[in-house]
């Protein structure tokens, strides 16, 4: 039965696989770019994506005042309004995720590079104050007040410590990333709007079938995802290849030390890289909510692991590789589930990865952000 299934549903699986793959690819960009410049698995990137989905949620519900189900009516009155809602929410998600990524970089990574500055010190001091005050009170307001008071003097101390900073070993970055990932997810779970429940996001458009492609229904949300993803990736490629900052990113990716000597401000390049990766994750968050109408504090974890897998599959550090890896993974998961059953989906994904790495140890398109391959 299942052997025939794959033929009958092939194009259906292909269309949905590509859509999922594009979302993986957009998230994978963040992993791949940060890996390119820092050689770091930015584990917290999945949470940057998650934060972006909440950005979409807030934009839709608070800014546009759309509630979950409006008696079968969709919230827009005109096509123009719909476009405005979509664009504004995408921008909101990109801003939230981008800002999140920048704060993350300054707080959790930059001090480890021996370049900690006042911004990171303030955030860290505030967090220290907050968890210290948890020891004594249960009231959030009191905790915040205590933390705010502690922040000032403590951040001065932290900045002093940062001045003696040195480059930390790679694993320290990884654990700092894991720690921030946990803290972000738990912060959203504890103080965010979802109370650990799966949070439905309002549907902004009716998922109309636009046309039928060899038996597969191509829906409007799929088309928007495809167009959006291609648009974002193209602009990213143009940015990296054509602008001065983009050249900086490639230079740092190739050889940070030489780039520094040649006058590239490595820290600001890294910041821009995080900002771009975060913005892409924000875009992915918008696409995700558009197709799946939901978010939750832990939604990033699995998607993050998959996206990172996609990045490695395509060749980490390689922007086109992220796109290819994402689509290959999305398709492999869909075809594999159809043949072997959905419970084996992740096993199939990892076996595909392993097989690819056996023959091409640096991914399908090979490593490198720095080389001209970008």
């Amino acid at each position: 039965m299942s052997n025939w299934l794959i033929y009958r549903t092939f194009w259906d699986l292909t269309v949905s696989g590509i859509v999922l793959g594009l979302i993986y690819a957009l998230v994978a960009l963040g992993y791949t770019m940060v890996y390119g410049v820092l050689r770091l698995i930015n584990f917290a990137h999945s949470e940057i994506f998650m934060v972006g989905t909440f950005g979409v949620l807030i934009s839709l519900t608070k800014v546009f005042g759309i509630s979950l189900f409006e008696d079968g009516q969709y919230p827009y009155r005109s096509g123009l309004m719909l476009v405005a809602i979509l664009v504004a929410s995408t921008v909101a998600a990109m801003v939230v995720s981008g800002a999140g990524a920048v704060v993350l970089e300054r707080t959790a990574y930059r001090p480890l590079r021996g370049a900690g500055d006042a911004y990171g010190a303030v955030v860290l001091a505030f967090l220290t104050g907050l968890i210290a005050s948890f020891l004594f009170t249960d009231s959030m307001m009191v905790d915040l007040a205590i933390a705010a008071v502690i922040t000032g003097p403590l951040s001065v101390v932290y900045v002093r410590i940062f001045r003696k900073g040195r480059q930390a070993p790679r694993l320290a970055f990884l654990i700092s990333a894991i720690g921030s990932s946990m803290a972000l997810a738990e912060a959203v779970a504890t103080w965010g709007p979802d109370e650990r429940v799966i949070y439905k996001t309002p549907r902004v458009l009716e998922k109309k079938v636009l046309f039928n492609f060899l038996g597969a229904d191509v829906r409007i949300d799929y088309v928007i995802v495809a167009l959006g993803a291609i648009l974002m990736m193209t602009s990213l490629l143009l940015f990296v290849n054509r602008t001065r900052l983009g050249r900086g990113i490639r230079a740092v990716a190739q050889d940070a030390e030489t780039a520094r000597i040649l006058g590239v401000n490595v820290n600001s390049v890294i910041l821009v890289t995080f900002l771009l990766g975060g913005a892409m994750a924000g875009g992915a968050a918008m696409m995700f909510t558009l197709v799946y109408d939901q978010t939750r504090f832990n939604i990033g974890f699995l998607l993050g692991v998959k996206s990172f897998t996609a990045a490695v599959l395509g060749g980490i550090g390689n922007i086109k590789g992220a796109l290819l890896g994402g689509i290959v993974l999305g398709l492999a998961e869909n075809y594999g589930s159809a043949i072997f059953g959905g419970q084996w989906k992740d096993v199939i994904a990892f076996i595909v990865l392993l097989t690819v790495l056996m023959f091409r140890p640096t991914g399908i398109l090979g490593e490198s952000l720095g080389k001209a391959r970008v």
Partner: protein
Amino acid sequence: MSLTESFRQRTAPQLRVGSRFRALPKSARWSLGALLIAACYLTPYWPDVPVLGWIVNTPGTSFENVLTDQIMMFILVALGLNVVVGFAGLLDLGYVGFYAVGAYTTAVMTSGQFSWPWIAAMPLSILMAMIAGVVLGTPTLRLRGDYLAIVTLGFGEIIRITANNSDWLGGPRGINKIARPPSFGPFEFSVLNAKPYWYLGFTVILIVIFVLSRLENSRVGRAWSAVREDEDAAELMGVNTFKFKLWAFAIGAAIGGLAGALYASKVGFVNPDNFQLQLSILFLAAVVLGGTGSMYGVIMGGILVAWIPERFRGFSTRRYFVFGVVLVLVMVFRPQGIIPRRTAAAGIAEKGDTNV
């Protein structure tokens, strides 16, 4: 000589405990060591000691059981993972897979299907985990760095999903009625008395420490360090890098399997949910938090990772937030871990670390 001395003096302060201890006469070292070991055996009684008790006790959950179900396992696992990550420098994000293999082997062999005695299931569990290590390592160890990390992560997931979808392993329902260790003299292994598990577990930990320090200070340990520091140079200096990496994997896996087997026989029940990916990440956090490559460091890391969330149960839903922030803070202010590896510490004292 004076030069060496001056380097010693410039090393970080945390080393002084260790070097002072080494400076003591042999008899003093032995008796101090014996005292320390005795104190550790008595850990289940620590909550009854006035000040210490207030510090260590875990509110809302029994300290004794936290000690045996979590802390003990995390120490063992951290020691095992440290062989792979700390000694040989191989990033393994799927270590929970070996832990699962050990636990499931004991579960299958002692409950229902085979009814082997506990004592026979233990070595088999270790062996099975070791085999799993070799099976995973042989094709993947030629991958470098983060590629290895993601492949091992996949391996851990494959083990869990396979257990979840295999009726023979109990499927999602898991396996229960796993045999306990046989009672031995006054030490009765019963559900209401966790202390004997600690005596057993701590003995196992001591043996593992002994074995690992033998390895660390031998040709094997040097080969691992060389691979970690510069794999190409190591191979050109005559180190059979593949063989030693595989050994690191196998030994790490064996200790992981041992931890899993002990866990299964303590809790008496396993199901696939016990072996989630997140656990691998916590294991790694334990190793790095404590100090990658430093055995006493990773033991400390294991203790903290298992204990902090239980100690601060009062924080309720906020405690994993706190835990995450603590991880970041420790890494920012002590990037080499709480108790760093010795030579690594000497490196910090001198000049910029280039270990990236």
